[in-house]
């Protein structure tokens, strides 16, 4: 008996929210014994916590021990239910953007920038969630974004539905620890079950290039959840881009940064194209605007007369010296440029300013000059053309010279761009066109997700049936499992199984179809076919005279609707852990916010871009 009591007390963690304006990180303090640890989603049983738990009656007048102005709540009613409520609320916002038929949200963030998107990660990032429990869920989705880059909405949805189900269990009288135990058991079982649902398509890390149609299908699923209707076009485009940069040895790691996106306002989405190489929104410095079979030198320094770092004065002693001065300077730079021309260079790319005198000689020797503002762009260009970035103006050796099929200035819309087109490039650029900035931004996010999916594919090629088929199968398998569990956890496992139903249910609801009907059909169908899912179909040709959008259940394997195993695995894992974390909190203490000015956030100052 006493043991049960103890475990219950164990999870009574007291939270001190150190959310002073300075750091947003939550520090969970075990206040009474002063043992400090950064909270993880699992329980930590320390000697101190048990000791603490033994001190049954709490110190009288807890509030009086704290600084004035701090807040304190505890217990099921006050803390747990309200935390769950907050998570539900958060989920309300993102639910309607789930799936191919999800609607967009217009978010205006704190610097008044407008976002129109249905990407959960972007929405949550911009709306500034402050409620601590809702934030835990948000952080879980954030982790998913970092780990996989897709499936963020899945985490929010699954996590909060899990909490919703837990709430009714709590009201039934189960303790939070029993529920979390059950959830963890269910999670373990889920992770065991997931790989067994694999759809076998003979896709391996090595043969991605030979299976372009399948890869394209996988990416289309990702894009379809953002820009349904454009998914086939964009999916093929992204696939092509990804496979271009992968090279022949697919085993080498794939870097998301190698797919560049160049957004140019105007035209329509279907005018988007893919270029092997780089596209930069700049104009060239020199008079020459087009070079074929370019031999390129890349410099990180300005192309100009070298200036000393140390402050110095040129000391002239006689009139002759004065006369010769300018001439010498000119000859010096001319020799340098001439040396480049002699080495066969016909394009130079510089990270710094191109001096007027230097430009004059570059034009004289018919060398094209491109100036790049960003050092990251410089690095990428160097990678595209396989050149070595030189820190000093000198003629490069043979190995340091880059090569490019053609470099030219083009006008897209009314934007001038420099195109580095190189068939053998390790970098590919997608030129996205669209009529508004918001469409372009949303398109960029969809492409990002697709590229991330491709990356996940290079790590693990197990494909699962999409369209909610996996979830329904999981739901039925898990409830069977629940019935075999002897303990009280079986209720929790049962609920966990039911939570999976929400995925096809919401997919159906967002499409305006009766969800209960679909669910019933799915359950029945799954007896015979584990790949049955909810399909949003589109007839093949434009001219078919039937209503060409169908919402039906169907075999997702036949219609090639694939999800990635790895995405699903992490999403379920993160969501469960987050839900358990929220459940295991029963006390909330908010310290009084400290005064003083807001600390400047300097995040991301050295990020790429």
């Amino acid at each position, binding site marked *: 008996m006493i043991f049960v009591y103890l475990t219950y007390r164990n999870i009574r963690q007291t939270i001190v929210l150190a959310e002073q304006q300075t750091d947003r990180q939550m520090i969970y303090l075990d206040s009474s014994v002063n043992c400090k640890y950064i909270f993880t989603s699992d329980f930590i049983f320390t000697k101190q916590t048990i000791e603490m738990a033994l001190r049954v009656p709490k110190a009288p007048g807890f509030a009086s021990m704290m600084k004035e102005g701090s807040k304190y709540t505890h217990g099921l009613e006050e803390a747990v239910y309200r935390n769950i409520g907050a998570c539900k609320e958060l989920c309300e916002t993102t639910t*309607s953007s789930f799936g191919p038929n999800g609607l967009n*949200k217009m978010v205006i963030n704190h610097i008044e920038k407008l976002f129109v998107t249905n990407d959960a990660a972007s929405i949550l990032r911009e709306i500034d969630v402050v*409620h601590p429990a809702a934030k835990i869920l948000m952080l879980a989705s954030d982790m998913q974004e970092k780990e996989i880059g897709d499936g963020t909405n899945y985490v929010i949805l699954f996590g909060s539905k899990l909490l919703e189900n837990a709430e009714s269990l709590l009201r039934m009288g189960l303790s939070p620890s029993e529920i979390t135990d059950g959830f963890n058991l269910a999670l373990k079982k889920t992770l065991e079950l997931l790989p067994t649902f694999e759809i076998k398509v003979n896709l391996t890390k090595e043969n991605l290039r030979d299976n372009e149609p399948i890869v394209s299908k996988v990416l289309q699923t990702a894009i379809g959840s953002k820009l349904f209707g454009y998914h086939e076009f964009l999916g093929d485009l992204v696939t092509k881009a990804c496979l271009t940069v992968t090279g022949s040895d697919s085993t080498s790691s794939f870097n998301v940064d190698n797919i560049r996106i160049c957004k140019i306002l105007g035209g329509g989405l279907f005018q988007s194209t893919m270029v092997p190489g780089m596209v930069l929104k700049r104009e060239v410095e020199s008079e020459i605007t087009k070079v074929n079979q370019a031999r390129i030198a890349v410099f990180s320094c300005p192309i100009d007369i070298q200036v000393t770092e140390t402050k110095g004065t040129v*000391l002239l002693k006689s009139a002759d010296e004065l006369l010769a001065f300018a001439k010498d300077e000119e000859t010096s730079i001319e020799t340098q440029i001439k040396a480049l021309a002699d080495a066969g260079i016909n394009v130079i790319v510089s990270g710094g300013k191109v001096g007027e005198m230097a430009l004059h000689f570059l034009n004289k020797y018919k060398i094209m000059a491109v100036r790049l503002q960003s050092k990251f762009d410089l690095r990428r260009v160097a990678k595209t053309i396989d050149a070595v970035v030189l820190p000093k103006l000198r003629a490069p050796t043979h190995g340091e010279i880059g090569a490019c099929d053609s470099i030219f200035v083009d006008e897209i819309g*009314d934007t001038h761009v420099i195109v580095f087109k190189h068939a053998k490039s390790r970098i590919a650029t997608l030129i996205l066109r669209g009529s508004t900035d918001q469409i372009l931004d949303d398109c960029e996010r969809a492409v990002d997700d697709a590229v991330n999916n491709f990356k996940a594919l290079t790590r693990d090629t197990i494909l699962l049936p999409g369209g909610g088929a996996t979830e329904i199968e999981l739901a039925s398998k898990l409830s069977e499992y629940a019935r075999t569990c002897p303990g009280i956890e079986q209720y929790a496992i049962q609920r966990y199984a039911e939570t999976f139903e929400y995925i096809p249910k919401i997919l159906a609801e967002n499409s305006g179809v009766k969800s209960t009907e679909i669910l019933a059909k799915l359950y029945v169908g799954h007896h015979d076919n584990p790949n049955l899912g909810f399909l949003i179909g589109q007839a093949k040709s434009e001219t078919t005279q039937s209503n060409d959008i169908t919402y039906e259940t169907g075999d997702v394997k036949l219609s090639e609707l694939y999800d990635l195993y790895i995405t699903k695995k992490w999403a379920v894992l993160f969501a469960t852990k987050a839900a358990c974390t929220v459940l295991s909190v029963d006390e909330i203490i908010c310290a009084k916010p400290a005064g003083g000015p807001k600390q400047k956030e300097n995040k991301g100052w050295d990020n790429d871009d």
Partner: protein
Amino acid sequence: MQPMIIILKEGTDSSQGKSQILSNISACQAVAEAIRTTLGPRGMDKLIVDNRGKPTISNDGATILKLLEIVHPAARTLVDIAKSQDAEVGDGTTSVVLLTAEILKNTKTFIEDGMHSTIIIRAIRKATALTIKKIKEIAVNIKSNDAEEHRALLEKCACTTLSSKLIARQRDFFAKMVVDAVLMLDELLPLNMIGIKKVTGGSLEDSRLIAGVAFKKTFSYAGFEMQRKKYLKPIIALLNIELELKAERDNAEIRLDNVDEYQKIVDAEWSILYNKLEKLYKAGVKVVLSKLPIGDVATQYFADREMFCAGRVQEDDLKRTQKACGGTIITTVENLHEQSQHVFGTCDILEEVQIGSERYNFFTGCPKAQTATMILRGGAEQFIDEVERSLHDAIMIVRRAVKNDSIVAGGGAIEMALSRTLRDYSRTIPGKEQLIIAAYAKAFEVIPRQLCENAGFDATNILNKLRQKHFENHIWFGVDIIHEDVHDNFTAAVWEPAVVKINAITAASEAACLILSVDETIKVPKSSAEPSNAAKAMNMT
């Protein structure tokens, strides 16, 4: 009792659901209302005074929307598409906004009736694809084999654009000018190689096109007036050199130990300048243009030797001169001889001409002549500004027409044809889509309708006539603004490049879909607001 839970920052405004879509649509309609009356040949202009008190008169949709500084998030989308249309084709900015608003207006009833917006979006996308296909199908290819004929065609396109602008009455005059200017350019048709100079005073017809370069007389020093004002076949040097006495290098210092040396240094400084001048003179240069100042010593020197000079020439003018006359902009006068073939440019005539109260340098008869300059005359400053914008639109249209040579008839004809096609199509499909595609088809009628309304015609009457004509497969019938009737606009030469329409319809549909797909707006307060407060957030106060 459960208190309300706030999970977002205090002051965060969030609205969602059907009413949100409806209010966004209303906002877009309000924007369209503002520029509705500017459409077409009988469209009215708007006078906008910006926050610095600068007045602008325009009937260009993109310009007006830009100046309105719209903050409503959904309405901002319309500004964006107008901008995108401006960037992509340069004209048709008003139509694109009107079209978007009309599509939204026609779909509004479906939203009110509870139809899911994704169904509407899907139908709109499908209808757009059909429309584009139809335009491509019926667009007429103008052939460019006969140069004379090709020219005439381009002029007609320019005329159509200009007829809806301030300078509609002078459209033939300007259309010719615009086509001339565009045809002078090289194959890339760079816009910045057409210079537009504005001189107030005179009448519109005094405007002229220079096949070459013209720019305002630059600031000059004593001696300039002694220089000749007309040169035939001069050799032109384009410099990026300061022809003035100046320090060779900022951080150079001279230390001397006797008086003789001092005089030598002074002489040396002069001789550096004279060396440069002499080198130019010896190379046979007659005209010196420089980006940097040309001082009075140099001006005097050139005047003595029958040479012409202009300092502080604007960079784009200098670049245009280079394009027209050949040569390169040089940064040093060393080695002029070894490559003199490439360094200098030339032209037939350089002369200084008085236009209004300004003096201009004209370079005409240039050998390369891949550039043109328009000199616009007119009364008020705002007036010339608007003329410049109109000409910009016309230039863009002609550029597009040169690049893609398929055209359609304007004046509402193409819209009516599309509307009819879609309507016919919609009758062949079952389900909700039928209604939406029919509504989309109806949206196209806004263009001819607005044309009529702006001209003061009975829109219903004209539209009825149009529908009847189109039913009889007269696909090019549109509004005849002059006779208050309908007319075959293809024979009447009211033409627009097909690409303009394609882009406008794509952009309008994309924008409409975007607005329809938003069901929630969340507005986070500006970051200057109160710092976040977790206790408040959890409603424990």
